[in-house]
């Protein structure tokens, strides 16, 4: 069977599995359409959370980003895992004891204020919309390569599938479907990584092979370690050594912090911990989620390093001079068709050469444009793996995109129908109208995601940084202060959220949209890039909140009592219905 047929087969089978599970779990009762899975065991919930968390962007792009960034890429690895420690230790058990089911619910009640709730709703909706925007591009890229259509057409196909899937899956179905999607995506990610690790270092575990000695075709050690080889190759090409990076220390620190804190403030992650049976389970569930995430995230940098050595040697040849284009392996031509690889023979010698600088810059020696996404998508071909592995990667990328989109659509629809309409502007709407708003919100979410999928000029990456910065500077401080400080009042919390939000928004909008040419380290505040500014936004939030709270009225007694009661597990109610 050829790759095309196998891809249709494997992707088709995986879709059949998800739809089957959606139908099977939905069968209980109609009420469960609106239940996201009250009473999901912690291991299962952890797995679903991991699938929800690992998006098409992290499945397809992350290894590529790290492959090109080297040490600097560590910000994503630590940032997107370290946030779970904050979630588990500072938020999840208390929010589970609180027992309501959305982040704005908590903020609204803890700060006894409709205004605080509205600020939280706006943040939550904006964060989810920006986040889902990045998803469709990933789906489009996968479809375009494996169904051999344009990326834009791939995006439209993806929009149709996600729409159909989110409506059919219902809310309850999502959790168990995500468990299946996790299994598909992790298998699809690990198989090529393990193959490459064995091929290049003889170690089965990529995490070990990452630090190991390279072997030759006969399986004998070459005496050269993978990372030393990479540092050497990078230096030869005139780039910073792979293990050193080129970002300033303060910027690496700030970006890591903004991503960690932002992770802990993302509504679609937090909401996961409202649905476990007991407070105890909220604690361990975060641990399980991180186990399942770490399986992939510790493999990602290994895959990044393997692929980089492979890629440089394929293009520049073992002598480092370049390889004739007509002798390039099939994957180079395959991916040139999609536009993700470009070759421009600047010196007209017929040889491909990857090096320093941008392809557009005529003076730079570099003749290749290699998209980040290639690293994962082309790995099976680079390593000459069987056709079923290529098909599997397609299914894995789609599983990652679908699980994240479904989770985000769930939060968008509950935020709009429950938080914004029912508890906000239109408290008297019927259940039926509430459901209608939920569906409209989901549809709008998909359309916006599709728009950004078709028009992604670097904009999506900026917008995703925005989502994290926003979560870090608004929701996270408000939630943590709500739990750990009984003195924090509504005036303080609202002032803090608004100040953190305004500061972070202005900084990012200024450097990304108003004055993008001025977006250089010399102009940054303390040398912190817009990606890392959420850390400062968070500090602004904490400081403003503390000052304002000191100068305004004390917290009412019943709210203090509520804070006392969420601080220990005893008496926690059933997992909430939603």
């Amino acid at each position, binding site marked *: 069977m050829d790759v095309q047929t196998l891809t249709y087969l494997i992707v088709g089978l995986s879709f059949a599995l998800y739809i089957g599970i959606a139908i099977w779990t939905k069968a209980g009762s109609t009420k469960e359409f609106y239940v996201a899975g009250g009473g999901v065991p912690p291991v299962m919930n952890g797995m679903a959370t991991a699938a929800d968390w690992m998006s098409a962007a992290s499945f397809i792009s992350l290894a590529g980003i790290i492959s090109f960034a080297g040490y600097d890429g560590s910000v994503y690895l630590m940032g997107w895992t370290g946030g779970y420690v904050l979630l588990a230790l500072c938020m999840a058990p208390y929010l589970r004891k609180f027992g309501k089911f959305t982040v704005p619910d908590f903020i609204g009640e803890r700060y006894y204020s409709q205004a605080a709730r509205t600020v939280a709703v706006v943040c939550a909706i904006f964060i989810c919309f920006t986040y889902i925007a990045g998803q469709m591009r990933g789906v489009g890229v996968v479809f375009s390569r494996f169904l051999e259509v344009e990326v834009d057409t791939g995006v439209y196909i993806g929009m149709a599938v996600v729409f159909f899937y989110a409506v059919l899956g219902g809310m309850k179905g999502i959790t168990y479907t995500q468990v299946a999607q996790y299994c598909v995506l992790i298998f699809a990610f690990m198989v090529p990584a393990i193959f490459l690790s064995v091929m290049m270092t003889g170690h089965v575990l990529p995490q070990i092979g990452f630090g190991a*000695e390279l072997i030759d075709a006969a399986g004998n050690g070459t005496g050269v370690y993978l*990372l030393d080889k990479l540092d050497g190759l990078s230096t030869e090409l005139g780039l910073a050594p792979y293990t050193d990076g080129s970002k300033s220390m303060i910027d690496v620190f700030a970006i890591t912090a903004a991503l960690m804190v932002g992770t802990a403030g993302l509504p679609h992650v937090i909401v996961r911990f409202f649905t476990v049976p007991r407070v105890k389970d909220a604690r361990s569930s975060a641990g399980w989620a991180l186990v399942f995430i770490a399986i992939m995230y510790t493999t990602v940098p290994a895959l990044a390093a393997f692929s980089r050595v492979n890629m440089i040697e394929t293009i520049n040849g073992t002598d480092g001079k370049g390889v004739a284009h007509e002798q390039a392996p099939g994957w180079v031509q395959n991916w040139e068709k999609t536009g993700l690889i470009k070759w421009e023979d600047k010196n007209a010698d017929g040889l491909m050469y990857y090096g320093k600088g941008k392809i557009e810059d005529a003076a730079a020696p570099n003749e290749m444009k290699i998209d980040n996404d290639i690293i994962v998508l082309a790995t099976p071909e680079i390593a000459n793996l069987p056709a079923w592995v290529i098909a599997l990667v397609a299914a894995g990328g789609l599983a990652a995109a679908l699980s994240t989109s479904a989770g985000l659509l769930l939060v968008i629809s509950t935020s709009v129908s429950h938080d914004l309409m029912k508890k906000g502007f239109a408290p008297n709407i019927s259940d039926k109208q509430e459901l209608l708003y939920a569906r409209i919100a989901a549809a709008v979410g998909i359309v916006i995601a599709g728009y950004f999928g078709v028009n992604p000029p670097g904009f999506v990456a900026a917008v995703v940084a925005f989502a994290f910065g926003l979560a870090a500077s608004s929701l996270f401080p408000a939630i943590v202060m709500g739990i750990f400080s009984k003195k924090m009042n509504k005036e303080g919390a609202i002032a803090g959220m608004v100040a953190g939000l305004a500061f972070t928004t202005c900084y990012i909008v200024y450097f990304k949209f108003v004055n993008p040419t001025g977006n250089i380290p010399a102009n940054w505040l303390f040398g912190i890039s817009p990606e890392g500014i959420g850390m400062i936004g968070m500090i602004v939030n904490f400081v403003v909140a503390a000052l304002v709270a000191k100068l305004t009225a004390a917290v009412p007694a019943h709210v203090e009592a509520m804070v006392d009661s969420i601080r220990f597990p005893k008496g926690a109610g059933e997992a909430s219905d939603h």
Partner: protein
Amino acid sequence: MAFESNEKAQGYWRENLRLVITLLAVWFVVSYGFGILLVDVLNQITFMGFKLGFWFAQQGSMYVFVALIFIYAAKANALDKKYNVHED
């Protein structure tokens, strides 16, 4: 009130805070400390074929994060039992 006395309630919260702060200190040291601030110093040391600072940034910190959450879960559950505020 689930606690036998106010002192017990305060004692529970104090012990809980101490646990959280200790674990967060470790969390900070392995990621921001070893992976970022001290990375150049640790990179002088080789560990399983890695420069140690680089290893903490791309591998080690994540393993420690996982361990921290499970240690927290176990210790917090034990603390609940000690003060008799666990779930039934």
